[in-house]
Structure formats: structure tokens, C-alpha cells
């Protein structure tokens, strides 16, 4: 069930009415939201609901076991087992076929006649996100960031809550569980802000991301050898805008929908293409994942400890981040490019605060350079495989081909998408402030008209969000 569909609209209305009518009975409300979230997830494949439940139950049980012992060695052992089991589950679904392929290749090279049978494994939608939520819970319990273990009902909802279930944001256990422990206030619904986030998200996904994909990015990346420099360059920019609009749209809608149920999620994107340097970029792009990687991978590896190990930790974190997207060399190169860029930046600019003292010209050059490094990495991320990425890069020397995919429309989308990165950082707060005098009922009518307008503007059919595949 995709957000920009009538199916989701109807689902939302039923769940909204049900959840708020049960507001006085806190635990019943949580149970209702869990049931609704499982229905939402079951729309993709009901069998995976068992997987979701198993993962949640396992993490709850480990959380309890960790919380009820004070023996440091036992606590450490339990959290290590819990994290390993989570990663094994994720690894099985994401990498099993990759390893079977490799095993067969080795057997083939050794002249073996027996093949390891290929398993028909479908990657469950959102498995990365619910695994990350599970790890966040057991590690937060281990680090004593939660004063007591959550109930099973709270954990079931924390991991499955439908707005963030399939593509984040990755909400920390220490952030969301305290909200689930309290009764929600029916007088405190941040509806105006939620409407703005939902409408903006729908526009970014249905109009900007979808048209850029169908009119420019998909055809060029499908066969880069048929296109010349300008098409390839603008398809790269187009993909940068597309993936930002696609992914940030999902999380904006998720934040808005959660707010209508009385819950708050953290911001996940902060105008990433105005970043000055890659360190700055990773504090603006998919903030919940990059901070998750920092807290649960980079710091346990040793973090910023002195010497070369800092650079090793950075590189490892980015390479594993790339590998998480898929068992393919092009994702590893994507992570490697970011890792290398971060290491170089740490070496050349150890004191980041100096950047603030740069002249505006130097800052502008820095922003443009950062954007192009990110775009270069996006080529490897988007390409079907490493051969396509190499063909794509080789095409930048083909000046003789006339541009065929660039139209005034796609160019407007790209320019608009990049220009929007330079709007004031508090633009949403300003819009929300400007909308306050409009009576909330009239805001609803405007939201209805806005949704019809976005739906009419969009192409026929809705492509799934890019991050569903991860």
C-alpha cells in the first residue's frame, strides 16, 4: 500500500477514526494501531507479518533479559547475541542469493558438477528498517538509555508503526517508546504542520520524482551508450533531485501522518545539497540512518579515536553502509567514494568550524564541489551494475551526440529541485505560521483540493518509493 494512493487514503481515515475513538483506553489503542500496522504490512505479503512479529518478539525478549540482569558480562553477551540474530535475519534475506551465486561460481571454477540450489528468496519490504529499530531497542536498553524495558505491545508498535515501517525515518527506541508510554493528548494534534508536510511530500514524490524518473533518469541510465554528455550530465543531476524528492517525500509524509496520530518523529532531511563538505552532507541526508550508523557502528568501531583508526572506522562505516544497500560492487563503490571523501576531508580540514569563516565565494565553490562529488557517487548508486556505471562515465566524453532527453519540463524540475535546497531552513515553520489564521476546517478543504491537484499533475500510475527495495 503506497502513500500516494486512494487505498492508503481510505486506510488512513479508518485507522485515524479507530485510533482516536480508543484514545481513552491506552493499551487498546496501542493494540489497534499494531493490528492496523500489520494489515498495512500484510498488503505486500501477509506471510511476512510472521517475520515482523518474530523479529519484534525476539527483540522484546532480549530487551527484558538484558534489563533484568546487572552482570556486565551477561548483559554484553545478550546484546551481542541479539544484534547478531538481527543481522543474520537481515543478511539471510539480503545476501543469501548473492552468496549462493558466489558458491556456484567457485564450484564452477573448480570444475564441480554439483550446483548449490538457488533459493527463491523475496526481500521483505522494510526489513532493514524494522531490523534497525530492533537493534536500536536492544542497544538502547543495554546502554541504559531507557529506564525500563518496554511492554510487548509497545515494542510491537514501535517496530511496526505503519508510517515508518517500510522506509523510515529510523526512530530511536529512546525517542519513540516514551511517547508510547503516555496517553496522547487529543488537544495537541499538530495538524497544520502535518498537512503541509503531507502535501509537500505528495508533490515531491508524485510530480517531481516520478516525472524525472520516467522522462529522463530511467531511459538514460537504462542505456547510457545512446546518450551524449549533456543528457548524461542532466540525468545525473536529475537522479540527485529524484532520489532526494522520492525519499524525503516518504519521510515527510510519514512524519505528517504520525503527527495526526499524536506522535512526533525527528526530521530526516535538511536540504542536503547545500552541504559544505561530505561531513555536512551526512548530517543533512537521511539523518536518522547516518546517526544510526554513527551510534551503532562507527562509535562501537572506535569512533574518532586517534590515529589511522579514525579513518579506518570512517571507511568501514561507509563501505558497510554501501553494502547494506545491496550485495553489489556498485553499491560498495558508492560507499567507498563517500568514505574516501570523508577521510580526505578529515585530513585536509580537521577543524570544521573554520569552514564557517570562509568567504562566500569559497563557500559557494565548496558547496558546488560537494554536490558534484555526491552526484558522482550517485552514478554508481543508480547504475544497474558496475558495467553500466563505467559506460555512463565513459559517455561524458561523447560531445558529438545531440541532447534528446532534455526538455524545458525536465530542466525546470531539476532547477526547481536544486533551488529549493537554498530556501530558508525554517521555511516549513514560516509556512505553518502563515497558515495559522486559516481556520482548520478550511485548511482541510484546501488539503483536499491540493491532493486532487497533485494527483492530476502526476503521471499515470505510481512507482514505488526507491528505498522500498532496501
Amino acid at each position: 500500500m503506497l502513500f500516494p494512493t486512494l487505498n492508503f487514503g481510505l486506510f488512513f481515515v479508518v485507522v485515524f477514526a479507530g485510533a482516536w475513538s480508543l484514545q481513552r483506553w491506552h493499551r487498546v489503542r496501542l493494540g489497534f494501531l499494531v493490528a492496523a500496522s500489520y494489515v498495512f504490512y500484510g498488503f505486500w505479503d501477509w506471510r511476512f507479518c510472521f517475520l515482523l512479529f518474530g523479529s519484534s518478539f525476539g527483540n522484546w525478549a532480549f530487551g527484558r533479559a538484558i534489563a533484568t540482569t546487572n552482570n556486565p558480562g551477561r548483559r554484553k553477551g545478550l546484546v551481542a547475541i541479539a544484534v547478531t540474530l538481527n543481522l543474520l535475519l537481515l543478511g539471510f534475506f539480503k545476501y543469501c542469493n548473492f552468496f549462493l551465486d558466489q558458491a556456484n561460481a567457485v564450484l564452477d571454477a573448480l570444475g564441480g558438477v554439483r550446483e548449490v540450489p538457488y533459493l527463491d528468496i523475496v526481500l521483505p519490504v522494510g526489513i532493514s528498517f524494522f531490523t534497525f529499530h530492533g537493534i536500536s531497542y536492544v542497544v538502547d536498553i543495554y546502554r541504559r538509555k531507557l529506564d525500563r524495558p518496554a511492554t510487548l505491545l509497545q515494542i510491537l508498535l514501535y517496530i511496526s508503526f505503519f508510517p515508518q515501517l517500510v522506509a523510515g525515518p529510523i526512530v530511536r527506541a529512546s525517542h519513540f517508546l516514551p511517547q508510547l508510554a503516555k496517553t496522547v493528548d487529543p488537544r495537541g494534534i499538530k495538524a497544520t504542520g502535518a498537512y503541509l508536510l503531507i502535501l509537500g511530500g505528495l508533490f515531491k514524490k508524485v510530480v517531481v520524482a516520478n516525472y524525472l524518473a520516467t522522462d529522463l533518469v530511467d531511459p538514460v541510465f537504462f542505456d547510457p551508450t545512446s546518450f551524449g554528455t549533456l543528457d548524461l550530465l542532466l540525468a545525473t543531476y536529475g537522479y540527485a533531485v529524484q532520489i532526494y524528492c522520492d525519499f524525503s517525500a516518504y519521510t515527510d509524509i510519514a512524519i505528517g501522518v504520525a503527527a495526526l496520530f499524536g506522535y512526533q518523529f525527528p526530521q530526516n532531511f535538511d536540504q542536503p545539497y547545500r552541504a559544505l563538505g561530505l561531513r555536512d552532507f551526512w548530517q543533512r541526508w537521511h539523518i536518522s540512518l547516518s546517526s544510526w550508523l554513527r551510534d551503532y557502528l562507527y562509535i562501537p568501531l572506535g569512533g574518532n579515536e586517534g590515529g589511522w583508526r579514525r579513518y579506518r572506522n570512517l571507511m568501514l562505516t561507509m563501505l558497510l553502509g554501501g553494502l547494506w544497500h545491496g550485495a553489489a560492487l556498485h553499491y560498495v563503490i558508492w560507499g567507498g567514494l563517500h568514505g574516501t571523501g570523508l577521510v580526505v576531508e578529515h585530513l585536509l580540514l580537521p577543524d570544521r568550524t573554520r569552514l564557517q569563516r570562509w568567504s562566500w565565494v569559497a563557500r559557494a565553490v565548496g558547496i558546488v564541489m560537494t554536490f558534484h562529488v555526491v552526484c558522482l557517487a550517485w552514478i554508481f548508486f543508480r547504475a544497474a551494475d558496475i558495467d553500466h556505471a563505467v559506460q555512463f562515465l565513459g559517455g561524458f566524453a561523447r560531445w558529438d551526440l545531440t541532447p534528446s532527453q532534455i526538455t524545458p519540463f525536465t530542466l525546470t524540475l531539476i532547477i526547481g529541485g536544486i533551488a529549493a535546497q537554498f530556501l530558508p531552513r525554517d521555511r516549513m515553520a514560516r509556512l505553518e505560521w502563515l497558515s495559522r489564521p486559516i481556520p482548520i476546517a478550511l485548511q482541510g478543504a484546501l488539503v483536499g483540493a491540493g491532493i486532487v491537484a497533485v494527483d492530476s499533475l502526476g503521471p499515470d500510475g505510481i512507482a514505488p518509493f526507491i528505498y522500498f527495495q532496501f
Partner: protein
Amino acid sequence: MQSRAIRYRPTVEALDGATSSNLMQVSLSIILAGLVMLLLGSNSLLSWCNNLPVGQVSDSLVSICQTWQDALTQIGLTWFAETIRAVLRSFEALRWG
């Protein structure tokens, strides 16, 4: 080489400082949003019905939505969605030169 402390950017709530409304007001606004969508988006509603699995219920729904859309076309309420779509399609079809 000395180790450096990791700089934490504090978690930012996306809706920090946003104004709050009560449940009755929000419910009313959602009902109104639905009504406006029914009035202005009858074409999308019909498309959605046409994609439902074939059956007696969906046949009846298609019939109701078709009647609803015909009625709204007659009074000109489909103009909003059609105009927006037409303007965007013509922009999309624009080519250089």
C-alpha cells in the same frame, strides 16, 4: 594524533513549535478534505474503482462512480483537475526550438 570528540547535532523535531489543534477540529478538516476530493477528483475515483478486482460490489461501485462523474462533468466540477492535467501535459510536451 589526538582523538576528537564527536560533534552531535541535536535531534530536530520536524514539527517543533507548530501550532496544535483539537481532535474535533482535525476530524472536521479531514471530513472536509474528503468531501472536496469527492467533488473535484471524481475522475481519479472512477479510475480507482475500475482497478478493483472484478465482482458484484466493484461493478456497483463503478456504476455509482460513473454516474457521479457524469453529474459532476455536467455541472463543470471536473474542470479543475482536467485543466491542471492539460496545462502540465502541454508543458511536458514542449521541446526546444
